[in-house]
């Protein structure tokens, strides 16, 4: 692998940028691997990368039906934070945040992680009580988080309307300073390039059509490019997890919904941070390119259409204008939908299944991007050892039968 550096940039500039090597190979599938990862999004690629780098499992294939990072990795609003309520979720997302901090150096790929902070606004007394409870829980778990007053909010984000004129006046917020945003595509590409350099085969345009299962043990997958064998298969397929589970005869407590986002025309720098509001329901940040990145709620119905509905756009933009009246005449450039696999308790599933050797990492719902490195790291550890990593263990699928749910609907940020 050609390492990227400032010196390399100068060298390639002299060669008119004609000699950059491809970031990853496009190999033919081998007959057999130690581990197959189904799904080449951020989480799947991160899993493959950490398997090869930290757990010494290099004979790995990532099987992707489309192209790398072409699903929700390319469709999210790039927010990274870890201010979740419960200990289990706090540990998982904070583990991820720790990895984010050194990710660009680790991958030798600029993921443009910018710790510009996240405000979660409160508009009612109950909002503020919930925020205080969450902030206290965060601090006990070593997550930096504080309650801020409207005046402090105004200093952080001057364009927010904190006046009492608003229909839902802002009463305060929680503020996580170490949170931020990252360049979503670069995350997938960085992990892909890193994994490929360590010997992982990235198989694009390879769709899994079934699992080879005998005596309750997984032996490999059937694909449109032939059968591939492996004794360990990890499914990291987000919205399509349910379809895969069906092939393996497993039921998952997931429902796939369209979640949409939109970006505006590029503007000069106007927002300092990420602002989220559960109550009026919208979240917004500004990309380095200058466009406002706006996230909406999910559509209430099941859907695989990768498009959203107009009423949801309307409600979201109402919320944005409620918070930032000055954006009322900003024009929107693009709108798109992704398919999110929502869990009943708004927490992911990282779990073994009743089929030996078959693991699922899914159910991230509306907030998977922030967890990309952490999810990949703990899932890789679990696949390598055959035992769930301690951080991943509470997210077993068994919790829906034992009742040990981890209810993160409050911290999830998107109502569902």
């Amino acid at each position, binding site marked *: 692998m050609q390492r990227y550096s400032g010196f390399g940039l100068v060298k390639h500039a002299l060669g008119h940028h004609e000699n950059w090597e491809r970031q990853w190979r496009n190999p033919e599938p081998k007959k057999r691997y130690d581990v197959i990862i189904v799904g080449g999004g951020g989480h799947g690629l991160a899993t493959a990368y950490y398997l090869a780098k930290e757990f010494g499992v290099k004979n790995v294939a990532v099987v992707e039906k489309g192209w790398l990072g072409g699903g929700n990795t390319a469709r999210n609003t790039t927010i990274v934070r870890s201010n979740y309520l419960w200990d289990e979720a706090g540990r998982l997302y904070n583990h991820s945040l720790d990895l984010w901090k050194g990710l660009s150096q680790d991958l030798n790929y600029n993921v443009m992680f910018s710790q510009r902070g996240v405000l979660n606004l409160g508009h009612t007394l109950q909002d503020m009580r919930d925020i205080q409870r969450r902030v206290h829980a965060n601090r006990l778990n070593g997550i930096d988080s504080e309650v801020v007053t409207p005046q402090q909010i105004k200093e952080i984000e001057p364009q927010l309307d904190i006046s009492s004129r608003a229909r839902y006046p802002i009463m305060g917020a929680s503020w996580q300073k170490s949170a931020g945003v990252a360049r979503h595509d670069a995350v997938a590409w960085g992990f892909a390039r890193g994994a490929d350099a360590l010997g992982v085969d990235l198989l694009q345009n390879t769709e899994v059509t079934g699992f080879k299962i005998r005596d309750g043990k997984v032996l490999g997958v059937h694909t449109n490019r032939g059968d591939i064998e492996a004794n360990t298969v990890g499914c990291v397929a987000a919205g399509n997890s*349910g379809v895969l589970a069906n092939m393996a005869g497993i039921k998952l407590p997931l*429902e796939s919904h369209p979640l949409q986002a939109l970006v505006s025309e590029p503007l000069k720098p106007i927002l300092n941070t990420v602002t989220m509001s559960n109550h009026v329901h919208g979240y917004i940040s500004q990309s380095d390119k200058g466009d406002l990145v706006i996230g909406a709620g999910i559509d209430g119905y099941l859907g*695989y*259409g990768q*498009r959203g509905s107009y009423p949801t756009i309307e409600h979201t933009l109402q919320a944005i204008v409620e918070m930032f009246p000055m954006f009322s005449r900003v024009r929107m450039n693009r709108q798109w939908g992704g398919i999110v696999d929502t869990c009943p308790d708004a927490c992911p599933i990282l779990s073994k299944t009743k089929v030996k050797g078959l693991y699922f990492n899914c159910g991230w719902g509306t907030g998977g991007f922030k967890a990309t490195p952490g999810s990949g790291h703990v899932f890789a550890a679990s696949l390598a050892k055959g035992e769930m990593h301690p951080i991943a263990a509470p997210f077993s699928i068994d919790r*829906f*039968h034992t009742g040990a749910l981890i209810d993160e609907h409050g911290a999830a940020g998107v109502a569902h």
Partner: protein
Amino acid sequence: MFYIFCPYCKEHREEEEFHARGQAHLMRPSDPDNTSDEEWGDYLFFRNNPRGIHHEMWVHSVGCRKFFNITRNTVTYDILETYPMGEQPTITAATPDVRHEQGVQVADGGWQTVGARSENKALNEETSS
């Protein structure tokens, strides 16, 4: 945007008057005292999540406020039928060629015209407003 026929109001109304309430035809365990954790968990949390034909419950929340069922394709978003509570669907995933026989609302091929056109006039008569 869906344009949904409410089987109680006997009218097509816009999506915003309705709320989707998840999978239809769920049966509460009939003998709660002798129901295992496994069965309770399945009843409470595990749902069908098909790519294709799905039977789901909706409520006409700002209309008659009654619950009813819809058979819908979760990929094309075609609504194939709506029927009152207590009735069984006439179209299921096993029905051949459901779209052309029973289409009420059909995506027009494009990505933004969800549910905008009808293929079957009889089932999708415009109501004068």
